[in-house]
């Protein structure tokens, strides 16, 4: 059985859902369920290490191969996809939306199974196109502009990639993943930059990120689960495969390239975090947090030491889990309230307790607190950077990790804590699809947080041939040259202390439930309409602290680039006027110059 049938199956399920959605609500739900079950059954039963090839034309051929790396990332995408389909059951959209949704998954899975750079390119672009179509069916904001922005970034990245592919073909004579021999370092760096650019765009590395907040904001809420948790991993996969297979020698020998990429990742993590806690919209906040967390992944991958590389890949798994649960719970809240504006929410903890627990564990993992899945990756990343000796980089990454606490708290407080508004008094828990997806996401948050070795073992399988490093983990502990952590001990210590402190709480007198308005306000009368929810300008004072830093924007940077580009085009237009008489004049000038230069020899 061929692995690529997974994509065919997805496309088939997409058409099924398309017709289902055209005909009746029940049929739509049924076909989505069939899609989920079919994908999972195929993935469990028929995915096997296997190569295949068709349409061979000279050196070019479409070839697919399910290696260990592909399988690892494919499973992330399959999980993200199937889990995001659960909330999708409750979303009513145009029939085409479902079709593109399944197509995006199908092409993404083909991208990951591709065995050469051209096949990868083709499917990568088809994925982008499917996402473009989905963004055109967005739900809020300036939809057309957002979708255009996304596709322009993707296309520019793609053209650079294609350029890089041709140059690589010229030097190495093939378009496989293999390395390039006998080429100067500078050329290799150039080829790497060209080839990696679309993947940097995909994981929204700064300054190629500003499609992301708008896209996440305006896209359908269920799709953003898959978009952030699943599709961003295609970008991570692209970077991983380029680094491990094609440019491993370059990254090992060159001193500057790893540092530069790691610093770009660190700055992305920091600025993403800062923009996250300054945004007032739940989806935009999560979009920036996703950008920021992928920044850590880039730091880990870029630094290219065995520990940092493993940490980067582990953190991308963590990213899938916690961004998945965060986007799911927030989608549920938006589904019930009809707005994604944080300033219009509040006090929902009693109304939506399961969503609250989901979001809470999500932010705890995003902040990297043990024993959740966010911790092992960050821990290993810090130790890896320290072992490499770049103390300023580790400070930058640590600074970025503090911003996670700020945006996490803003998110959980603005939605679930504080004042319950009058109009939300009858809000119910999110629909079943959201709740089930949330609960399923919560399992890996704890399980892989306590036993990270399960994932590190898989990662070790494909980093070993490149780095040739020793095993640095058991199923529940990590060990580097400078540190050691056994995560269950931290978990047990926390649990034991919680039990003790809870007993202390229980034996010390009873407590009664105070009303929402029963508060200390220094004598001021408080009733239902009293605006006591602190959500507007949550970190407003930080505007003054950051000062000019917040004015930095990639949008302005690209507008500057555009201005230069336009001026240059204007200059060119003066010469290429399109008027035949001008061209005749140029020809005349040219002949005169030729006569003077060559002189009597003519």
């Amino acid at each position, binding site marked *: 059985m061929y692995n690529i049938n997974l994509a065919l199956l997805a496309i088939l399920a997409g058409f099924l859902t398309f017709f289902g959605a055209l005909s009746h609500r029940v049929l739509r739900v049924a076909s989505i369920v069939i899609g989920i079950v079919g994908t999972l059954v195929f993935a469990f039963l028929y995915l096997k290490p296997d190569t295949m090839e068709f349409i061979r034309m000279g050196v070019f051929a479409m070839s697919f191969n399910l290696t260990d790396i592909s399988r690892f990332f494919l499973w992330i995408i399959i999980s993200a996809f199937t889990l995001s389909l659960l909330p999708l059951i409750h979303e009513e959209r145009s029939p085409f939306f479902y079709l593109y949704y399944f197509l995006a998954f199908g092409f993404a899975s083909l991208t990951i199974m591709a065995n050469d750079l051209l096949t990868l390119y083709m499917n990568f672009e088809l994925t982008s196109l499917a996402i473009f179509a989905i963004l055109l069916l967005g739900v809020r904001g300036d939809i057309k502009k957002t979708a255009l922005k996304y596709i322009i970034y993707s296309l520019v990245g793609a053209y650079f990639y294609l350029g890089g592919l041709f140059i690589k073909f010229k030097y190495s004579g093939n378009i496989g993943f293999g390395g390039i021999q006998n080429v100067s370092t500078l050329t290799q760096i150039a080829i790497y930059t060209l080839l990696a650019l679309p993947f940097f765009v995909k994981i929204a590395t700064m300054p190629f990120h500003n499609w992301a907040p708008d896209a996440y904001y305006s896209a359908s809420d269920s799709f953003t689960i898959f978009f952030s948790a699943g599709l961003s991993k295609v970008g991570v996969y692209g970077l991983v495969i380029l680094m491990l297979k094609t440019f491993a020698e370059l990254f090992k020998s060159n001193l500057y390239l790893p540092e530069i990429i790691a610093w770009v990742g660190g700055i992305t993590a920091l600025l993403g975090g800062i923009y996250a806690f300054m945004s007032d919209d739940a989806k935009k906040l999560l979009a920036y947090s996703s950008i920021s967390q992928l920044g850590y992944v880039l730091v880990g991958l870029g630094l290219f030491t065995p520990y940092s590389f493993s940490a980067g890949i582990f953190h991308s798994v963590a990213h899938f889990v916690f961004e998945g649960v965060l986007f799911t719970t927030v989608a549920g809240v938006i589904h019930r309230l009809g707005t994604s504006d944080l300033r219009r929410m509040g006090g929902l903890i009693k109304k939506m307790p399961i969503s609250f627990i989901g979001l809470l564990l999500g932010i705890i993992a995003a902040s990297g*607190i043990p024993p959740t899945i966010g911790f092992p990756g960050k821990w290993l990343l810090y130790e890896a950077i320290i072992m490499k000796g770049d103390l300023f980089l580790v*400070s930058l990454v640590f600074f970025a990790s503090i911003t996670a*606490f*700020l945006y996490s708290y*803003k998110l959980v407080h603005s939605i679930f804590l504080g004042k319950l508004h009058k109009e939300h008094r009858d809000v119910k828990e999110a629909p079943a699809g959201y709740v089930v997806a949330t609960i399923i996401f919560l399992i890996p948050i704890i399980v892989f947080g306590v036993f990270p070795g399960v994932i590190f073992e898989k990662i070790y399988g494909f980093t070993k041939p490149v780095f040739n490093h020793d095993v640095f983990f058991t199923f529940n502990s990590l060990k580097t040259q*400078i540190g050691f952590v056994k995560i269950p001990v931290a978990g047990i210590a926390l649990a034991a*202390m919680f039990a003790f402190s809870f007993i202390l709480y229980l034996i010390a007198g009873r*407590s009664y439930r105070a009303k929402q308005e029963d508060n200390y306000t220094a004598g001021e009368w408080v009733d239902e309409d009293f605006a006591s929810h602190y959500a507007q300008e949550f970190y407003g004072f930080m505007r003054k602290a950051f000062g000019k830093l917040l004015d930095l924007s990639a949008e302005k940077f690209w507008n500057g680039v555009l201005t230069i580009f336009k001026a240059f085009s204007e200059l060119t237009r003066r010469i290429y006027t399109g008027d035949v008489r001008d061209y005749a004049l140029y020809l005349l000038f040219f002949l005169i110059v030729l006569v003077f230069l060559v002189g009597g020899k003519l």
Partner: protein
Amino acid sequence: MKILILAGYWILVTILGLLYMGIARKVTARIHNRYGPPFYQAFLDVLKLFSKRETASHGVMHSLGPVIAFAGISATLLFMPLGKGAPVLHFQGDLFVVLYLLVVGPLGMALGAGESNNPNATIGIARALSLMLGYEIILFMATLPVFVHYGTASIYDVIVKQGAFPNWAGLKYPLSMLGGLIALHGLLGEKPFDQPIAPHEIASGPMVEYGGKYLGLLQLWHAIGIIVETGLFINVFFGPQNIVWFFAGTFIVFMLAVIVNALMPRFRIEQAVRFYWGVPLILVVLGILQYYFWR
């Protein structure tokens, strides 16, 4: 057996923390030329708070907040070596484990305070989190050269490797030590960095809706917090070779903070954050450069 010893240390730290708090009040009063409460006042306060018959709660998270806060700081204490030779869970007195566990407590309290629907509480939390952007990075960058110098990320190994008086890391890296001391002041939340509490502005911030046993738990949290936070500084920079020196060191550092606290007014929050990105940042950057060029 080990668990019993751990429990013993834990009780000792709680008692000493409360004692520090009482002495701090006495010292502050004497600086202000007042008589002040007795040095055992903190014990009386906790006893009183825990014996209240009834306490107001705003919901489950509001009740659990102080419980999580106390549990978090107690768990952190288990990973914090009390000087050389003290049997804590120190085989992983790993810097990053401690730094991340240290956040569990404040996070719990933040969640609890948030549910109370009192804007003062949330403003306090927002300020506390923002202030972290200031001191936390300074503290981290200050301790970094020491950990790298001894080639370990374990706090216990740093204590053992640096040895007694003339070999103190604080003397090898004086600029980092100074930066760390300033950062510690913010971590302790003493003036001029008490914006999160700011009694005259936001009515003691996160604590505003807490009373009775909840406030009692928060007092215990604060007591252990003092020792854990000052202990981190002492362990890294002054490598206490036994538990007596550990407590002496934490006491001196804490009293220093209390004295500064008694003399200072309060920054506005953005001024406080800005302050940390000024001179202290330069100090710790110089400390790191010292590691690179003049070990």
